[in-house]
C-alpha cells in the first residue's frame, strides 16, 4: 500500500505535471529546431512569438466568452487557436519580409541572424505588452479536472490523490496530434521533403530546382502554428504572462540543444528530459520517500534539491553538461 501511495504521490506531483510541461517544451523546441535547421540560426524571438500567438488566442477567447460562444467542458481557447495561428503566421511572414529577407539577400553569416532575431524579440515583446499589458491573464474555462484528487481517493481508497487537470490532458493529446502531423508532413509530403533537402544541402537543393523562398515561407507558417499551440497550452495550464514566455526561451533552447539542434525527434526527447529534470529536482520528495523508506530513515527535511526559484538553473546546468560532453546533442541533427 505504501509503495502504491508513493507511486501515486510521485505521479501526481512529478509525472503528470512533467509530461504536460515536457509536451509544451517539446512543441516550443520543435519550432526552434525547425528554424535552426532551415534558416540556420537560433531564433531568440521564439519565446515572444509564443507570447504573441497566445495573446491573440487570449483576445479571441475573451471575445468568444463575451459573445457566449463556448465548447464546454473544453476550454474556449481551443476554438480560438486557429485564429491565433493565422494572425501569428501573418506576423512571422511580415517579419520575414521586412527583416530577415533583407539579411538573407545579403547572404549574411548566421551569427548575424541570431543578433537580428534578438532585435525582433525585443520588438515583439514590446508589441505584446503594449496590446495586452505585462500582467497575468487567465483565460482558461470549462471543466477544471478530468479526475480530481478526491474522486481518485474515493475510487481507490488510497491516502494519496491523483489529480489530472483538463489542461494537462488537452496538452498531451494536442502535442501527440501535432507531432504526428509534423512528422507526416516532413517525411511524406513533397514540400516537407524539400524542406529536409534544403536543410541537408542548400546548393544541391537549388540544383534540384527547390525554391528557397518557398521553403522559408512554409517553415515560418509551421513555426507560427507550433509557437501558438505551445504558448496556448502553456498559458491554459498555468497562466498567460508575457515575461514568463520570454523566460521560457531558456528551457526551450536547452531542450532543442540537448536533443540535438536540427533534429525534430531530439527536440521532443529534449523537451521531456528538461521538464522532468526541472520538476523532479525542484519538487520536495519528502512525501514520496516517507512512504518508501522505513520510519527510522524517513527524512526530516523536505528533500527538495533546489528551490523552485532555481528551476531555470536546472535547464542551464543540463545544457552545460550536454555542451561539454556531447555538444551535438542526443540526436545529432547534423549527421553526415
Amino acid at each position, binding site marked *: 500500500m505504501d509503495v502504491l501511495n508513493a507511486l501515486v504521490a510521485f505521479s501526481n506531483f512529478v509525472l503528470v505535471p512533467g509530461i504536460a510541461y515536457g509536451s509544451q517544451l517539446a512543441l516550443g523546441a520543435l519550432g526552434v529546431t525547425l528554424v*535552426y*535547421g532551415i534558416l*540556420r*540560426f*537560433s531564433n531568440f524571438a521564439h519565446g515572444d512569438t509564443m507570447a504573441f500567438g497566445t495573446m491573440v488566442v487570449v483576445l479571441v477567447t475573451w471575445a468568444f466568452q463575451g459573445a457566449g460562444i463556448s465548447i464546454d467542458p473544453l476550454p474556449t481557447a481551443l476554438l480560438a487557436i486557429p485564429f491565433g495561428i493565422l494572425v501569428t503566421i501573418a506576423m512571422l511572414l511580415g517579419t520575414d519580409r521586412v527583416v530577415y529577407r533583407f539579411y538573407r539577400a545579403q547572404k549574411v*553569416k*548566421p*551569427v548575424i*541572424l*541570431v543578433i537580428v532575431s534578438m532585435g525582433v524579440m525585443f520588438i515583439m515583446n514590446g508589441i505584446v505588452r503594449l496590446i495586452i499589458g505585462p500582467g497575468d491573464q487567465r483565460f482558461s474555462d470549462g471543466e477544471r479536472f478530468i479526475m480530481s484528487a478526491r474522486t481518485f481517493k474515493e475510487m481507490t481508497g488510497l491516502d494519496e490523490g491523483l489529480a489530472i487537470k483538463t489542461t494537462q490532458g488537452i496538452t498531451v493529446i494536442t502535442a501527440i496530434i501535432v507531432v504526428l502531423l509534423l512528422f507526416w508532413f516532413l517525411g511524406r509530403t*513533397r514540400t516537407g*521533403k*524539400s524542406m*529536409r*533537402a534544403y*536543410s*541537408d*544541402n*542548400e*546548393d*544541391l*537543393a*537549388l*540544383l*534540384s*530546382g*527547390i525554391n528557397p523562398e518557398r521553403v522559408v515561407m512554409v517553415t515560418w507558417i509551421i513555426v507560427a502554428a507550433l509557437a501558438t499551440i505551445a504558448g496556448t497550452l502553456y498559458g491554459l495550464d498555468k497562466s498567460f504572462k508575457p515575461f514568463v514566455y520570454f523566460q521560457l526561451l531558456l528551457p526551450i533552447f536547452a531542450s532543442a*540543444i540537448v536533443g540535438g*539542434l*536540427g533534429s525534430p525527434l531530439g527536440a521532443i526527447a529534449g523537451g521531456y528530459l528538461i521538464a522532468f529534470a526541472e520538476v523532479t529536482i525542484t519538487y520536495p520528495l519528502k512525501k514520496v520517500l516517507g512512504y518508501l523508506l522505513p520510519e527510522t530513515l524517513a527524512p526530516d527535511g523536505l528533500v527538495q534539491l533546489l528551490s523552485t526559484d532555481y528551476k531555470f538553473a536546472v535547464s542551464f546546468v543540463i545544457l552545460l553538461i550536454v*555542451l561539454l560532453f556531447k*555538444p*551535438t546533442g542526443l540526436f545529432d541533427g*547534423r*549527421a*553526415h
Partner: protein
Amino acid sequence: MGAPDMSDPYGDRGNKDRSITKDSGAELKPGAYSGTPHEGAAGEPFLIGDAMTGGYGAGPDILHNCTVAVEKGEIAVIVGPNGAGKSTAMKAVFGMLDLHGGDVRLGGTSIAHLTPQARVSEGMAFVPQTQNIFTTMSVEENLEMGAFIRRDDFRDTMAQVYDLFPILKEKRRQKAGELSGGQRQQVAVGRALMTQPKVLMLDEPTAGVSPIVMDELFDRIIEVARTGIPILMVEQNARQALEIADKGYVLVQGANAFSGTGKELLADPEVRKSFLGG
C-alpha cells in the same frame, strides 16, 4: 591556429558556435555575364562553352578564351594538370563563374545570362564533385528530390535509374550518407538523371574512389551515354577518361592546350609526354 582577430568586428568570430548557428556550406553563387551572346554557328555542338574568359568577381581571370563542348550522344572529357581550371570551366558552363568574354550555348541558343537554377529548368543537370547527395535522406528520397521540378509521374524515370544502378534499388530505403563512396556517386548521378536532362555534367565523378569502383563507375557512365544523354565531365584520371571519351579537352592554365577525339589525344606524343606519363 592564431587567436581570433578581435579588431575585426565583421570577421568570422562567433560564427562557428554550432549551438546558435548552422553553417550552410553553400557556395553556389550565380555568376555575372558581361560578354556578347550570339547565335550559334550551324552544326556546332549541342552544348558549347565558347571562348569563355572570366574569373570570380574582381579577381584575376582563371579562364582564358577556353572552349569546351559536347555533341549529342557523346562523352566529352576535360582533363589537365592540377589547377588547370578544369572544374572552373565546368562551373563557367553551368553559370557559376563571372564571364566577361565568350558565350555558353545550349542547342544553338545563348544561356550565358541564366542562373544555374534556370539552366536546370533548361534541361542541364550538374553533379558537383563533393556534397552531391542529401546525406540525411534515403536513396529514394534523393531521387525524388532530383525530380522536384517535374510535376508529371516520374516513376518510369526512377525505374530506369534503378535499372542503371541496381545497387540503389537494393538500398533505396537506406540513408544516402551511410553508403560507400562509389554508391554515393551513383546516387548523385541518379539524382541528376531524374530530371531527364538534355545534357549531364559530371565534376570528377571518380574522385576518392578505389580503382575497381572507378572502372565500374566509368562503365555506368558509358551506359548513361548510351541512353542518348550527352555527358560533359571533368576527370582527374586522364588516361581512363580519354579511353571512354568521344572528345577530349586538355586544359593548361585556364586555356585549351590540346583537343581532339579521345583516341587522338591518347596517341598524341606531346599529350602523352606531358599528361599521361609517357
